[in-house]
């Protein structure tokens, strides 16, 4: 079967891979590029564990064909921290114990950062509805929502200070 050659930008780096026409972006990230931070919980766009940002829009990478990444920018969980410096969303997830098993966590963190990039001062309800496409079975969401609200407050403070 013929394979497509794809050139794309992942977390700022130009990357190339070969993929079959039906392969998802999630599978290409995990299997072709070895970036296993994005998880497959369902493969049908229902759980959000594979959330990435594609040209600035939050998507389920299991619902995007790998070939569609051609010439576009993909941001994944692996690109959220700057080097060893955690993003405030990551730091607040740790401080709030907002993860138990941690499997859904990459998707939640990518989605939460995408929210705060658009809306620096979300209400609790806005956080809950934005994250309604990310399933967590361990936490009951309480500590996740608190972590996102905390991160938002810290980011606002950073912006004010800057």
């Amino acid at each position, binding site marked *: *079967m013929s394979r497509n050659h794809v050139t794309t930008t992942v977390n700022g780096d130009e990357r190339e891979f070969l993929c*079959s026409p039906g392969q998802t972006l999630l599978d290409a990230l*995990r299997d072709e590029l070895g*970036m*296993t*931070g*994005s*998880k*497959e*919980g*369902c*493969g*049908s766009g*229902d*759980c959000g*564990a594979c959330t990435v940002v594609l040209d600035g829009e939050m998507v389920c990478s299991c619902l995007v064909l790998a070939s569609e990444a051609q010439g576009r920018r993909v941001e*994944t*969980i*692996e690109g*959220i*921290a700057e080097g060893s410096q*955690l993003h405030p969303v*990551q730091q607040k*997830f*740790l*401080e*709030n*114990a907002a*993860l*138990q*098993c*941690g*499997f*859904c*966590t*990459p998707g939640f*963190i990518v989605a939460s950062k995408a929210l705060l990039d658009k809306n620096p001062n979300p209400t*609790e*309800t806005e*956080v*809950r*509805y934005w*994250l*309604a*496409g*990310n*399933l*967590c*079975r*361990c*936490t*009951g*969401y*309480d*500590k*996740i*929502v*608190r972590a996102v609200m905390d991160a938002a407050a810290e980011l606002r403070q950073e912006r004010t200070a800057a």
Partner: protein
Amino acid sequence: MNAPEPKDAFKVVGTRPIRPDGVEKVTGKAIFGTDYKAANMLHGAIVRSPHPHARIKSIDTSKAEAVPGVKAVITGADFPSLEDIIVRMGESSGSTVDISTNIMAKDTAYYDGHAVAAIAAVTRQAALEAARLVEVDYEILPHVIEMCDAFAADATKIKAAINTVGLGEGEQGRPNASLKFTSAKGVAAAAMANAVHVVSGHYSLKPVHQGYIEPHAAVAAWKADGKLDVWCSSQGQFDVRGLTASVLHLEIGNVRVMPLEIGGGFGGKTTIYLEPVAALLSKKSGQPVRVAMTREEVFRATGPAPGGEIDVKLGADADGKLVSAEIEFQYSSGAFGGGDAWAGVMHSVNHYAIEDYKVTGWNVLCNMPKHAAYRAPGAPQINFAVESAMNDLADKIGIDPIELRLKSAVKPGDPSMMGSKFGEIGLIECLEAAKAHPHYSAPLGKNQARGFACGTWMNYGGPSTASVSLADDGSVLVTEGNPDIGGSRASMALMAAETLGVPYEKVNVTIADTSSIGYSMVTGGSRTTYATGIAVIEAAKAVINILRERAAKMWETDVANIEWIDGSAVCTDADNAGKSFTLAQIAAKAGATGGPIAFENGVNPLQHLPGYGAHICDVEVDKETGNVSVVRYTVVQDVGRAIHPAYVEGQMQGGAVQGIGWALNEAYIYNKDGRLDNAGFLDYRIPVASDMPMIDTVMVEKPNPGHPYGVKGVGEVPIVPPLAAVGTAVSRAVGKPMRSLPISPDKVYAALNGG
């Protein structure tokens, strides 16, 4: 064991540090079951029966084998013969016959999704293509799925021979029953006849899935010397090893299981599904093989919790004290023996002191996957019925629901249903704390109502191994055998740091593979922080004794003259009185004073205590649509002592939300052909963030005297009370009893509109 240390003596226990594995998990670096890759690894795919019950007449794999890239095809015929050896483990027990048959059908497919063949190929795509080309000739047999069909006296018997327990001759007219178990005290019927207030009801629940977000996956490498390596996520690598060795007839020591990070289990990963399949594919192909499930496969072929049909009758005296309980129920178990009826019986009224009761539970076979443990297995279903009936009783007598419970709640010294006397349990304290909580007396809004329920889970202790060793710079290495499913590395590090008197940050925790440390039972039964915690604490205490001996050598004095205070050896003999060496200073001299400082410790503690919870739930009903929103929720729980309070709260919140999902949304839906109609997260709807309010938590701390720091298991009890708390709240909001779960909008709408 001595009484637990007082709380004000703690330096790090009870604090909320960042978990040791946290950074790996927020950066996407942690390696879960589906992330592991072996060199030269093949990809597996499983062929599954589309029929709920069918005899396998023949399987033709020739076309599948001809697909380019296919390296191995196996069927049930490739599995070793079935010798019925009972394997005891964790919260479940089962026979090797059942486990092997559930993993791969031999002569009969027993449910929609039952594996019948498996492929390994160089790509997943080739494996899937080959799987489509496997030709199975089925003779379709009649199926039974719904409990009322399966338990009927004239039901189609789905298995010719099933192991039965407690049924005696003729199976008492129930062809699909595998167990009947009764716990009785006094004469329930006579006491009921004398009761002043009597309530009764029939309650129904559908099977529900544990719903962990990580699908099952396993990599197996069968080596030329006949030994087997397995990499998988599970709730216990040692029980994966034992079960896999048993199914494949291997020596336990020839199987090595490497634990990967686990993406949720809730009991559902205490057993095996894929490991023997991957192993046999690897044996046949000579290469490592990964087999991973899709979400659809997880729903169709792995462990739901039992559905139930439950009849409850409670009797109370004029004052409201319970005087009798008569309960009979059936739980589904899938197409295999075992099941949760025993646990259902033992958790029915184990939180109330009642002189006369009779509780009977049945396990009933049906054409579904072999049911698996789900958080407090067997308890939420029966608790839904009993606690809903308690609320009816409170209404009937006209007293407050918590006051009613306080009249019968068990306290230390009362007899338990197990026949022993309760130790330092905290149900009364939970009820009092719930009654005093502002939530309980807060005003309700329009279309809102409140429900209350309390419940219990027995918890467990059991075998665990841990080691503590020191590096020569004073670093502390804790090694244990329990997968970290919700922050247990942090708890182990806290307990080790507390015992040794060193900062939390000095302690590193590793979860070892099955060849690197002694046996530990599964992470389940709310046992890990209790039992493995004791293994860690005792190993740390042994290390302190070694450190004291080494310090004695350094001062050339007797070890009796050395005390361990705040992480240092302090000398009390006259020559060096008051002088001290820190742990790091002694560790640095280890080479000169006797060699490496390390201690491995196996324990089997059984002084665990049952947990109790009291939940308050407010719902709001949309009268136009029948939709129910949980608008406020409070969990009160006796946690013994919270080692890492944030992760204890997390257990309470997560368990409550699973219970809310069970009450309102979740159910297996089979169509008339016996196929699962909602095998995905779109149609099997677990709670999402926008469904939930914040979940308030109150940790009641009544320490367990059987643990040095007072730990009681906390993970399971929070899923027990929500079903009745939610159900009662909805019942009150609509003005009719809602006794069939899930209480979906259509049922609420029908109830509101005269249905």
